[in-house]
């Protein structure tokens, strides 16, 4: 939390965000405790900014209409918070040269001067928590529940697996992509299956993992979360969560826009720039040596920049 304050102090420049209008178009619900919520929460922390949200827009064409509409409505920054929106954004952004757009998760601005792109180095947190998982696991067996193997989800899972194996090369990592972002029941059964295969520590990504967390709680299996702080779902067994803190990035974008730069930058939130934070569950009794492993790993990432 101290780091946050430092950076926050550093971020507060002379321009405030008073009256700055931000629009977010996102594919899932604002309270999904995952991808969408992370961005909505972040935007709402920007003091003075006016935030409009259109959530639940999984239909790409509808999202295109929304993005276009917000742009023509005079919003300063329109955030297309979904990888699938990119193709549409490529067509829309040139029509509104005075509006700044941000697209994530992606690493492509299509060479357009008014498009920012952003992504999360979720593999970093994945690696850190994977190491913790391996250290905490008594069966040397760890399970992962994933949605569809794509984008941010795949990045996280790969990082997690790498982390586990780097800490304990003989450990077993079972990964189960259930091929849906929304089938909670299937996610819970996937967790059961992973536990049945011997896992005593689980992790997962995307909103349907709430089902997996529930099973973990029932079976007394530990859980590592990502995208948002998932401690509240199961305070008994959630060890830590990799939380996406987009706010610093947003503040930087706002500054740039107010100074006249409407895009062209590729953002990546990492440990180094405090965009990624491991939030530990205060009520979980985490052994010091495990925490040290995590902190060392985080420091390594920070040093890498």
């Amino acid at each position, binding site marked *: 939390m101290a780091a946050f304050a430092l950076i926050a102090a550093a971020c507060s420049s002379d321009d405030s965000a008073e009256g700055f209008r931000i629009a977010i178009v996102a594919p*899932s*619900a*604002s*309270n*999904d*405790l995952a991808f969408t*919520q992370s961005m909505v929460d972040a935007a709402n922390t920007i003091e003075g900014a006016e935030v409009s949200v259109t959530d*639940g827009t999984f239909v790409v064409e509808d999202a295109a209409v929304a993005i276009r509409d917000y742009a023509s409505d005079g919003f300063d920054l329109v955030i297309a918070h979904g990888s699938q929106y990119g193709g549409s954004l490529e067509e829309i952004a040139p029509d509104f040269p005075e509006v700044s757009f941000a697209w994530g998760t992606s690493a492509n601005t299509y060479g357009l001067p008014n498009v920012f792109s952003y992504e999360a180095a979720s593999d970093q947190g994945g690696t850190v928590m994977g190491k913790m998982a391996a250290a905490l696991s008594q069966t040397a067996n760890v*399970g992962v529940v994933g949605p569809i*193997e794509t984008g941010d989800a795949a990045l996280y899972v790969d990082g997690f697996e790498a982390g586990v194996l780097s800490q304990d090369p003989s450990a077993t990592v*079972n*990964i*189960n*992509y*259930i*091929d*849906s972002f*929304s*089938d*909670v*029941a*299937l996610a*819970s*059964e*996937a967790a*059961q*299956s*992973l536990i*049945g*295969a011997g896992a005593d520590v689980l992790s997962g990504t995307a*909103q*349907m993992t*709430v*089902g997996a*967390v*529930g099973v973990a*709680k*029932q079976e007394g299996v530990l859980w590592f979360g990502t995208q948002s702080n998932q401690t*509240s*779902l*199961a305070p008994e067994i959630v060890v830590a969560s990799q939380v996406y803190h987009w706010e610093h990035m947003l503040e930087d974008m706002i500054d740039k826009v107010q100074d006249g730069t409407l895009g062209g930058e590729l953002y990546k939130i990492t440990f180094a720039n405090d965009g990624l934070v491991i939030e530990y569950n205060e009520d979980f009794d985490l052994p010091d040596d495990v925490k040290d492993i995590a902190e060392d790993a985080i420091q390594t990432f920070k040093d890498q920049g």
Partner: protein
Amino acid sequence: MSEVFTTAVLVAVGASAIRLAVPLLLAALGETFGQRSGVLNLGVDGIMLLGAFTGYYAVLKTDNVWLGLLAGALVGLVLGLASAVIAVTLKAEQGISGIGVFLFGLGMSDLLFQKLVGTPIPIDTFPQVDIPLLSDIPYVGEIFFQHSLVIYLAFLSIPVATFVINRTTFGMKIRAVGEYPDAADTLGVSVAGVRYATEIIGGTLAGIAGAVLAITLGIFQQNLTNGAGFIAIALVYFGAWRPTGVMLGALLFGFVNALVLELKTLDIIPRDFTNIAAMAPAIITILALVFVARRFRAPSALTKPFTRGK
């Protein structure tokens, strides 16, 4: 390969299949009553979703899982009644009015969840109840007899439903109204009354199914059912409008899903082909119907509103 299909794995898949099947089974059973009397309700998924949210919310506020079930049942009952009004009294086109109910349930449950709860809060789930003696049977015990009370009740409802449909006067009326509404009407059976009853039963069971799902998972989320209501409708056809058939269909569907999950965990299904594997339950259901000799036909009056004198 044989070390993969150990009994432990099969047992796990079996237990998982049962858990996945229960919401489908309950919702499909309810729809069976309705369809047997001639009413097609495509809004089952919407009723399930509202039942799921209400059940979830009730447990959240009272910490009592059984109150949650009751709440889900009540909401389902009301929606079943509404469905009856729409389909029976207003004689609306049943295929489409159901879609409207579905959309309404989908949106309303999500809206209520966002406004009344906000960030997801976990709730208690049903306690596991091991049936004495039976649950100690090796393998079989673990698959069938180590579940929650709700699951046992759900399976018990199948023979009860079969009994009701085949051996009670009410059941006879249901069948009559579904096959020969004109004749039934002449004999003094209230076609509308029977259909109201079956729709209410259907709605209540769908509401219970949703509540069971939410409480078992211990959480609610937008579109929690993920289309389970539609699968339940399909299962009614698969089960030839008989509770036992519907149960078998739900179990088959649950089993294939559970098996695919297990194969993914064990890495037998390569990651590139998980999508193909995810098609398996649907394809197998169709194939099962193709290869099983069908001598069953639908209730003759299905989807036809009844008007005396026509």
